[in-house]
């Protein structure tokens, strides 16, 4: 059967509830969506798959809201970005809650400010990602054997998202802006800072030779 366009498949799902058409969309986009999450979670395969599943299910449930103003892939990546954002927020809240409970239990003599707790909790969430057992995953068949996720772990969340979308998924700046909901100038700033950090890391490790 000839490959159908995304719009045709989306129409079949939205108008007729055709699940086979959605299956084709899932098969087509599973790789880029899972790769996007793998990069954002610094190589946590299980978490990436869970988030990718949530993304496709949200896309299915809300497919009637797709108006075709952007391409289907941009719309899908926007959902993926929101799913990851929600996950991060949930994680951060849980870390804060756990930390507060721990503090209450220990009845610590040195109280920490609320801001300090939140900041360190965010740091803990990052540390949780960084200490992930899969984070030392090397790109298969890479002649350079870059510790890819180690390099990405140096970036802030927004920088990592923008850099990943541009360098790996090949999205232009206007689409990154659509996906993340950030203004184009903000995207450019994140890209510039993220790339500087990555280039510094790679040069320090001798990859420019």
């Amino acid at each position, binding site marked *: 059967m000839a490959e159908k366009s995304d719009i045709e498949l989306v129409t*079949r*799902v*939205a*108008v*007729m*509830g*055709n*699940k086979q058409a*959605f*299956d084709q969309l*899932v*098969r087509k986009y*599973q*790789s880029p969506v*899972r*790769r996007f999450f*793998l*990069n954002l979670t610094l190589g946590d395969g299980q978490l990436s*798959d869970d988030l*990718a*599943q949530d993304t*496709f*299910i949200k896309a*299915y*449930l*809300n*497919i*009637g*809201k797709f108006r075709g103003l952007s391409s289907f892939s941009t719309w899908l990546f926007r959902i993926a970005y929101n799913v990851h954002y929600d996950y991060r927020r949930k994680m951060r809240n849980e870390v804060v809650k756990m930390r507060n409970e721990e503090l209450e239990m220990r009845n610590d003599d040195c109280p920490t400010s609320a801001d300090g707790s939140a900041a360190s909790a965010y740091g803990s969430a990052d540390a949780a990602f960084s200490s992930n057992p899969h984070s030392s995953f090397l*790109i*298969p*068949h*890479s002649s*350079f054997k*870059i510790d*890819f996720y180690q390099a990405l772990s140096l970036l802030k969340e927004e920088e990592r998202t923008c850099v990943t979308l541009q*360098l*790996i*998924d*090949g999205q232009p700046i206007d689409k990154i802006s659509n996906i993340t909901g950030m203004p184009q100038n903000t995207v450019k700033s994140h890209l*510039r800072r993220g*790339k*500087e950090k*990555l*280039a510094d890391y*790679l*040069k320090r490790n001798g*990859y*420019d030779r």
Partner: protein
Amino acid sequence: MTDKDNLQTTFSDDRLLEHLFGEAARQEIADNGFSDRVMQRIAGMEAPAPSMVSCNAATQRLTRLWTLFCVAVGALLFYFVNGWEMLKGSLHVLFSSVATSLEVFLTTAPTVELRLNPVAVLLLLVFLLVVLPYQTYRRLSEAL
């Protein structure tokens, strides 16, 4: 560092990153049952509401009111222009003309020589009995 140096550094950094990250960009992740797992979860769910129906309640209410308004206007017009009589007249004319045509055909049929091309008849039959049912079946099975 001058602006020119900055530009050169940025350019060489970009090339370095594109070179090193290009391999990751080309990396395809094997499905390994992922799509099936997603579809299994979806199988238990109801189909999403069709996009036409997914508009908000206010829009739906307005649509219904507009339909009711149009039906009411149509009914009033039908009544005031004596629609029933018009409809009866039209149906009478239609039936009379069909009956007349049939009568004329039956009266003159034995004298009319029908010239039929057997190939054309065969093609018509193939179209009606094979192509049309097959296309209908194919479109229906794709849609459902």
